[in-house]
């Protein structure tokens, strides 16, 4: 009885979690007219790829995609270069000044200068509206730093480094040739965490980027999906005859269908890749829950 109820609840849960995403897929493959009139619930109606063809015609979407890939790749690399060595050092119990350094990194987690002082800083150091702005902002997440530190503390015995040092290896050598190879699992986890954050973030772009050429995909999405920036532009809608009015109405429908296709196109890379790397994500949360 208990098991029966439990499985039933879980099935309801699966439907609630998956249906909105499933609906996006079937809506994007249907005739927009059918979607708008509520004829699509379980299967695509009047299957068509028109919405996707229209999405791929929009140059702003390509541009956004390209920018996001660039920001995600270089941004993640920058994140790792800052996070991994710092976490390794903080994990060393015998390091002089370790207490101070831990404190130094912990304070910004609870107290921040806030939006405006950060905005003024970015402006002052000339990082406003540059092609590399979004690579450098959000360079280190304190939470990720702590998780990585805990990994070093709990998974790699410190004696290993010490014996290497005894054999005359420099600290650089110990880090690059012993610690880094052993830290591959956590590097994978952090790379994924940071990459997802870059892919999905829009806040920094909203505040610090105004040049269209540098906008990431999420901002392009927002402009089209939420601010209803005109799609399928280049068609004059003034002075319409009856036929043209019909065509305009049809364009409205097509724009609506494009939205579903666009949501799918922008989310698919993560949703398709995620089941394969799921265990890494889960591992990150688990490590974070250990007390360092």
């Amino acid at each position, binding site marked *: 009885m208990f098991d029966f109820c439990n499985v039933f609840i879980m099935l309801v849960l699966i439907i609630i979690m998956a249906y909105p995403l499933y609906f996006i897929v079937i809506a994007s493959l249907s005739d927009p007219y059918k979607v708008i009139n509520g004829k699509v619930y379980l299967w695509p109606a009047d299957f068509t790829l028109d919405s996707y063809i229209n999405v791929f015609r929009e140059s702003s979407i390509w541009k956004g995609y390209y920018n996001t890939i660039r920001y995600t790749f270089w941004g993640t690399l920058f994140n790792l270069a800052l996070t991994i060595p710092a976490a390794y050092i903080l994990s060393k119990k015998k*390091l002089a000044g370790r207490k101070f350094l831990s404190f130094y990194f912990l304070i910004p987690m609870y107290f921040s200068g806030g939006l405006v002082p950060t905005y003024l800083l970015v402006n002052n150091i000339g990082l406003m509206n540059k092609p590399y702005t979004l690579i450098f902002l959000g360079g280190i997440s304190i939470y990720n730093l702590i998780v990585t530190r805990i990994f070093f503390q709990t998974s790699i015995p410190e004696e290993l480094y010490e014996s290497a040092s005894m054999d005359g290896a420099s600290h650089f050598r110990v880090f690059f040739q012993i610690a880094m190879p052993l830290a591959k699992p956590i590097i994978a986890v952090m790379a994924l965490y940071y990459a997802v954050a870059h892919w999905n973030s829009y806040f920094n772009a909203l505040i610090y980027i105004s040049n269209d050429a540098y906008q990431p995909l999420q901002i392009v999405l927002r402009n089209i999906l939420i601010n209803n920036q005109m799609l399928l532009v280049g068609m004059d809608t003034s002075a319409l005859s009856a036929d043209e009015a019909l065509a305009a109405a049809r364009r409205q429908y097509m724009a609506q269908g494009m939205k579903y296709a666009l949501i799918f196109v922008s989310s698919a890379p993560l949703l398709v890749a995620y089941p394969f790397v799921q265990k890494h994500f889960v591992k990150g949360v688990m490590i974070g829950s250990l007390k360092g």
Partner: protein
Amino acid sequence: MKVIRNDWQLYLLILPAVVYVFIFHYIPMYGVQIAFKDFSTRLGIWNSPWVGFKHFIRFVTYPNFKKIIWNTLSITLYNLMTYPIPIILALLINELNNQRFRKVVQMVSYAPHFVSTVVVCSMLILFTDNNNGLFNHIIRALGGTGSDWLSKPSLFPSLYVWSSVWQSAGWSTIIFLAALAGVSPELYEAAYMDGASRLQIILHVNIPALAPTIITMFIMRVGQIMSLGFEKIYLLQNSLNLDASQVISTYVYEMGVRNGQFSYASAIDLFNTVINILLLLVVNKISQRSAGVGIW
């Protein structure tokens, strides 16, 4: 002696992170002083004249002050009430005997975590549209009457909170499932021996095992009670629901970035941060006294 000789290399390895945090976290902290000054870009942070609490007073006496605070608090408190959902889900998932089914449940319920805020908000806007939205189509098909959900201030907190639950409930179960996996099998055996039912085992073995995690996570949540995320609210905001959707973070953005009232916006931000820290300290203290669990 060799060990000490190249210790500078250790500090060199951590230097980039130290410098980065100094620039992007500590310099803005220094900049917080503009909350007490009349900042002008011409004079700079240091030379702008002190004005004391002028900007704080302006915020507290702003006619919409109460509304903004209320909106912020009502949404976060509402959100806090959904806190047990992932715990219940974790307890239920933990009871699933079929490993394959369990994997499917976990994989599906984690998925929304990877959908971006922009996409979640777009989906909400598309689905709740009065004429073409999925939700209204379903309601009409069931015999109800549709409406434009996002233009109603009264529905705004619910839309915000439940879409967040959709996005994060599954993902949040991970930490609780990890804690449940750590319960020693002997405890279960002993309970079975005593003839405990499954519900009793959940109540008397599993929930106590989760207690420290539940409390720690709860303290963290309370510490963020006034810091309502900007990103989602801003995307869902429109001129019709502004009565319920103007919160501290969106007001700071509007004043600071859009209107260039740097000092005023900083003051509001600081006001907010201080309340958050105080709340965190108080709740942490209470929990340390009563349950012996704290975050430090």
